């Protein structure tokens, strides 16, 4: 059910870090390790998500958003609360 959302998130990630090959991204692996994202890329990615889906991402939640699937679940969960 989250598959189209994961694909959408991936395309946002590739917009922020255009040097990523989307074909190799495993949505179950931590993005930072897998894709060598630095703190700036990661913050830009979460900021894009926050603005696109109109959800607040408090700093205390950032640490548990490690994989694309975790981010997708988080987005689904928080959108449902609206």
């Amino acid at each position, binding site marked *: 059910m989250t598959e189209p959302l994961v694909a959408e998130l991936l395309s946002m990630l590739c917009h922020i870090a255009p040097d990523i090959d989307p074909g190799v991204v495993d949505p179950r692996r931590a993005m930072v390790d897998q894709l060598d994202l630095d*703190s*700036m890329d990661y913050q830009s990615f979460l900021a894009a998500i926050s603005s696109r889906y109109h959800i607040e991402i408090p700093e205390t939640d950032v640490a548990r958003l490690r994989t694309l699937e975790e981010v997708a679940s988080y987005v689904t969960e928080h959108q449902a609360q609206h």
Partner: protein
Amino acid sequence: MGEIRMPSLGADMDAGTLIEWRIAPGDRVTRGAIVALIETQKATMELESFVDGEIEELLVEAGATVAVGTLLARVRAVGAEVQVPPRVEPAPSIAPPIAAVMPAQPAPRIRSSPAARKLARELGLDLQTVVPSGPHGAIVLRDVERGRARPVAATLVQPPAVVPPVVQRPPLVAPAVTGSVRAAIASAMARSKREIPHYYLSHSISLEAALRSLSTINAARPIADRILPAAVMLHAVMRALWEVPELNGFWIDGAYQPSEAVHLGTAIALRTGGVIAPAILDADQQSLDQLMSALRDLVVRARAHRLRASELTGATITVTSLGDRGCEAVWGVINPPQVAIIGFGAFAERPWASAGQVTCHRVITATLSADHRVTDGHRGGRFLAELDRILQEPITP
């Protein structure tokens, strides 16, 4: 009358390729506006105007490779007289005038960038067999890299004399600079180690106070406005330079030249390989929030290969950080003609003894590699001590 010329981006650069014009005659430009895209052996980058005015004439076609210093365009001061030839009323004529003004077709030739030619030479690839994708049929680096991946027989299907239609694709998304970035790093770093008598200092700094202060600030902000520790470190470096300004400048032709402006080079690792250190221009004029925005903007554009020439060449000092998951310390190699590089390892929790007590602090190792022709360990040590002092103060965004 203003001019736009092919810039020199290093002592080893003698030519560059104009990939694409971003302006046309008649366009108004301001200082800093992007006027063209150029490709050098180092990277593809955006060229800025250094003058205000109106574009009068473009003198070099897209796709052409020209020597450093070549006049690319003329810029007229806004409000200045337009230099037009006196208007002559055309004589009535029956023949359509179009044919008379059609320029002669130039003989087809292979346009290619120096980086593309160099790689083709290295690979033994005939440029005739490479399908160009640059504007006006120019062969750029990525075309040669693609050509390498293809079997030779397949490339011969393309009749070599025919210039295929220009494919309109985003010009900069292909991260095809690996080879040339590597070559540029090799050249600069070898020169650095050959010529610069480095000395090295390190200092462990507790970030506990700074990171707590930062958390309080960030907790009240939406994610897009949060400040990262990396920006805090850059801001502290910039302030510490006020105390030891002689680390900011150049060693050129056997003499030290101080720089009044602080253009903070920031090493950014490229996932495609290599590292570049574009500068945050006039970092000393910026608040922490402004520096954070500038850093974000720089990282995004570095990833997309959209840096400006002034950023790639302007740094007066460099900071290299290993990021959150790197190792403990980095001893930088000075990027000539600069005279210092500051390194930050990853911060990590460590036992920290202070006032007779051992507590747990997040600690970072700051290092300084500096040019002994310009400064000594005493002044370098002063810089690291000042950096420490600044990082114990509450953060002001």
